[in-house]
């Protein structure tokens, strides 16, 4: 398939963003679960280039925080000593892509742990948790979308190609799933699954739940494409030559659904990342200590945190570029693409 320019542009943007998350160990200065009990709720450190005396430094530096006298959670900068930022430093062990052992980090400082996005209640680095949390949330979104699209493809193909009672039954069930508000549906399915499970199991559980809930809309779209594709001349010709159903579907009909599926993927992935965030935020998703974008925010459910520690809110801003990337990709895919007409008619881009 020939890539349009705007599509390629957004793919590059998304590629870079996902690259950062995939190489989380390198971009995050610390291990996401490592605690620094001496500095809970440390505000973000400011990166300086000009020191107290007004001298300019080419190498940016930070100051350490110390407790303000007479308080227990108020910090102030200690300008007595500056800690220059070092790049490509050796620090905590991690495995790049889960395989390559490494200790190299993008930045760090000597004798001081630096927290550019502050710390949480246990003194864990918010920046590291954000980057590593992206791995969990984005993977959940991608896997969930994969499940949904495969389900939708199979069901839509069967319904569209064979027609008859299969079509009737499958599309009635699809209507049933569409009739439920998806978050309620997600809740309902999640409600009947075990509550406390290990993080890995919880992850696959919610991926399965999220992925299974949304199949109806892609199935309807695929069905519409298959319906029109199976009457095309070359498909009839192939059938005339004795092509079997499976061969026809695999080589002649399903390739036609490619652009619809791609567009749906660009719409579904961010939606599912949000679903994961919502579940984890409410405590039904991936549990601590594994970071995910949802449970990164879950401490904000407490008013005291929401009011006193504004930097706990910062991670949400970091998520915006990802959603922007997917939105841009989806809308440039929809622009006069072959899938456009069908999408519009069945409101494929909704919710």
């Amino acid at each position, binding site marked *: 398939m020939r890539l349009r320019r705007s599509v390629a542009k957004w793919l590059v943007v998304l590629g870079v963003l996902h690259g950062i998350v995939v190489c989380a160990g390198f971009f995050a200065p610390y291990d996401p679960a490592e605690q620094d009990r001496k500095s809970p709720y440390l505000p973000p450190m400011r990166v300086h280039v000009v020191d107290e005396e007004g001298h300019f430094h080419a190498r940016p530096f930070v100051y350490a925080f110390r407790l303000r006298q007479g308080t227990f959670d108020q910090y102030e900068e200690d300008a007595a000593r500056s800690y220059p930022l070092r790049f490509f430093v050796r620090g905590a062990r991690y495995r790049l892509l889960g395989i390559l052992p490494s200790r190299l980090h993008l930045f760090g400082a000597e004798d001081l742990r630096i927290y550019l996005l502050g710390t949480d209640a246990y003194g864990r680095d918010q920046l590291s948790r954000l980057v590593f949390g992206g791995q969990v949330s984005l993977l959940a979104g991608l896997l969930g979308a994969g499940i949904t699209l495969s389900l939708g493809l199979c069901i839509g193909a069967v319904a569209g190609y064979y027609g008859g009672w299969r079509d009737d039954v499958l599309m009635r069930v699809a209507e049933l799933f569409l009739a439920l508000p998806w978050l309620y549906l997600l809740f309902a399915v999640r409600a*009947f699954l075990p509550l406390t499970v290990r993080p890995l199991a919880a992850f696959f559980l919610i991926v399965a739940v999220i992925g299974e809930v949304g199949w109806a809309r892609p199935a309807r779209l695929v069905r519409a494409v298959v319906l029109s594709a199976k009457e095309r001349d070359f498909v009839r010709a192939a059938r005339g030559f004795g092509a079997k159903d499976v061969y026809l579907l695999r080589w002649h009909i399903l390739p036609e659904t490619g652009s619809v599926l791609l567009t749906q993927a660009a719409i579904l992935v961010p939606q599912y990342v949000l679903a994961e965030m919502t579940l984890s935020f409410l405590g039904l998703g991936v549990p601590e200590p594994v970071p995910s974008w949802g449970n990164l925010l879950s401490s904000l459910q407490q008013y005291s945190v929401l*009011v006193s520690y504004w930097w706990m809110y910062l991670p949400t801003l970091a998520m915006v570029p990802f959603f922007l990337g997917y939105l841009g990709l989806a809308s440039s895919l929809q622009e006069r693409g072959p899938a456009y007409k069908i999408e519009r008619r069945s409101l494929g881009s909704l919710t």
Partner: protein
Amino acid sequence: MMRYFLRRLGHAFLLIFGVSILAFLFTTLAPGNYFDEMRLNPQIAPETVAALRAQYQLDRPLVVRYASWVNSLIHGEMGFSFAYNSPVAPLLLVRARNTLLLTVTATVLAWGIALPAGVWSAERVGRLPDRLISWGTAALLVIPDLALALGLLVLAVRTGWFPTGGMASVDFEDFSLLHKLRDLALHLALPILALVLSALPLLVRHVRAAVAEVLGAPFMLAAQGHGIPRRTLLYRYALPAAANPLISLFGFSIGALLSGSLLIEVVMSWPGLGPFLLEAILSRDLYVVIGGVLFSTVFLVTGNFLADMLLYWADPRIRTKSGAR
């Protein structure tokens, strides 16, 4: 008319029936139930737990449970809440009323803003106002609902402009009627704002696209040639012609708003179905979960039913089609 109406109504009831069966099917897949925790407690005899299970028919086959649930539904109970030790329906009704208040107001407001904004933007495609609206909707689209709700909450807490949490002040009962309404409106403001802002961008975009498509049609040019004023042209000619996809969108938007309200109710502690359902899930309060899901379905199906009726009224093609059948 009557036939179309009845067919749609039958369709709606079938859907609700289907969802209730689906919900019950999921319950059999569920490992564990409300009384499982009791089983771990050495103070409670296994016989007691078994008796409780028997009392609530949890040891019976699915079909029997479903039948007895339908029976209790007919008697207006919708099963029994283990946690509250009372029938489900009255518990749910109060919460459902609050959720309804929130979503209906939000739906009306969102559409009230989206229609003029979309038409306004469609009339000026490519010009500055249109681009501003496009940028605005894009910005709202990329901010996650959760972030939006939390952000508004932070704003409200910091500025003190709006009360946060709940739907009434502590001394609500002592207020005069007018004061009561004002108090309610103030408490509604924040969750409504979050809901409307999260629903708005999609609506505006669809309205804009639909109206822009109609504006290019030859009959619009002809109408313009007849010297019909611009406002009449836009709202009496273009908007009805673009109504068909928008009415389907209306049905869908109710579903989106219901889902949105679920999250926002929890974040802003609005006493609706959302927090209630979450609590029920965490305590495995089976029938409350089923009831909550069913209530949301009823809302959505009602919304879609309304959309169908509107479509019948707005689109003559459907009238002739259903008349011919």
